């Protein structure tokens, strides 16, 4: 059986740790990376959802999301839900980058749960 992994893209170490713990508490495994470049490179076969910070060093979360959408199209692979988890509030731009949902920091366990229930209830642990 394939694993269900949440990919967390977050440059702040505390928040990276926090989201991993929140996701774990809700029964999901996770992998965390600190940059948009790493997010784009990360294999996505087992990834069921991506929490994407927007303000990142190097390419930002919006840009990373667009690249992921392009490669999905080129390789005809499944479309992974991408949820912005950010202190910014520019939803319109997020939507235009192929981001599916939007969560404003700080996100509490219930916020994370709502998103996971909505986007990966069938795969969840």
């Amino acid at each position, binding site marked *: 059986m394939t694993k269900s992994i949440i990919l967390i893209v977050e440059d*702040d170490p505390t*928040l990276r740790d926090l989201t991993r713990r*929140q996701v774990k508490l809700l029964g999901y495994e996770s992998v965390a990376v600190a940059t948009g470049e790493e997010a784009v490179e990360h294999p996505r076969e087992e990834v069921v959802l991506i929490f994407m910070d927007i303000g990142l060093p190097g390419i930002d979360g919006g840009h990373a999301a667009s690249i992921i959408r392009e490669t999905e199209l080129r390789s005809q692979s499944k479309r992974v839900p991408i949820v912005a988890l950010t*202190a910014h*509030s520019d939803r319109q731009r997020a939507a235009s980058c192929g981001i599916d949902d939007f969560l404003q920091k*700080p996100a509490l*366990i*219930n916020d994370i749960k*709502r998103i996971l229930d909505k986007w990966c209830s069938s795969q969840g642990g």
Partner: protein
Amino acid sequence: MTEQSPQTTASEFNQNAAIFRLLVSAVKDYAIFMLDPNGNVLTWNEGAQRAKGYTADEIIGKHFSTFYTQDAKDRRHPQHELEIAAKQGSYEEEGWRVRKDGTMFWASVVITAVRVEGRLVGYAKVTRDLTERRIAEQQKEIDAKILAATNVELGQALEVKTRFLSTISHEVRTPMAGIIGMAELLSVEDLGAENNGIVRSIFESSKRLLQLLNNLLDSARMESGTVSLENRTFPIRAVLGEVRQLVSPDATKKGLNLKGTCDLQIPEELCGDELRVRQVLLNLAFNAVKFTQSGDIDISCVLKSQIDDITLVRFTVRDTGIGIRSEAQAKLFQPFVQAEDATTRLYGGSGLGLSLSKQLVELMGGTIGFESQIDKGSTFWFEVPFQQGKCLV
């Protein structure tokens, strides 16, 4: 046609000239006078005396450059005017002239060369004092310049403020997210009653700090006019459900029953600002939970009217809480006001939530209000017009 004798013509001419001189001499608003071919004053009228301050005795025989500034005289400007008038028939201009007392006035001048049988016999000069108009024009120009400069400055100040707010909002949110999130994680661990109590206090305090920060930032943005609405298609029932879900932990802790319905006549999808609707509903719902000790909280919506494709929805949040005294009701939507000063000490809060809610609802083109009875409870409502169905992009 009868042939006229030269004598009759001359006498008629003299008679006409006398009438004409009489008319001219009585004109008060225009200085009308004659110059000889060299530019010396030949005649003077009432208007000329008023405009320039000289009596006829004082000025007749003097050169008309007397009325010009030293600078104009140095440039031989009066002579140039006469030369142009002689050459082209007339000369017109507006410019500063000097009165007898040395004061200046803005003159509109017309100089016409007078010729008899082709020979230049002098100049007719008509001058009008337009100082008031000129000063008004200059004041208008100055006002316009000041206004333009002020607008630029205001725009810059506003931009700085907006940038400051957005930066602070972003910078503060990141550490706040760490504190709140970690405190919450600890609060679900079993740390022993005392430690769990401490962690819960950290968690609740940081949540309150965040809410205060959010409301402050929104109020400031509202003030600077940088809050914009986002129109998106959204499922209204899901929003109500989420709001109930979000207040449910606090309500459950107090043993309050959460309920509510959404009018079946309201379409599944509406076009509007989901985030702002949720924000106002949450503000009202959290208030309801905060001020209610027992009973239930009802979060509902009904269809108020449907005209063309505009759906007017009324959202209500009804509680069975402490209610609001009628004396305090009038100022409830003012910023930093709570019903009672003691309320703040007992229940906390900045009093920004309702004033912000009002501003947001009004920004969406809606209205907000409430009914309340002491010890029975309060019903807060707001109505917002939405475009029915999917947003037209």
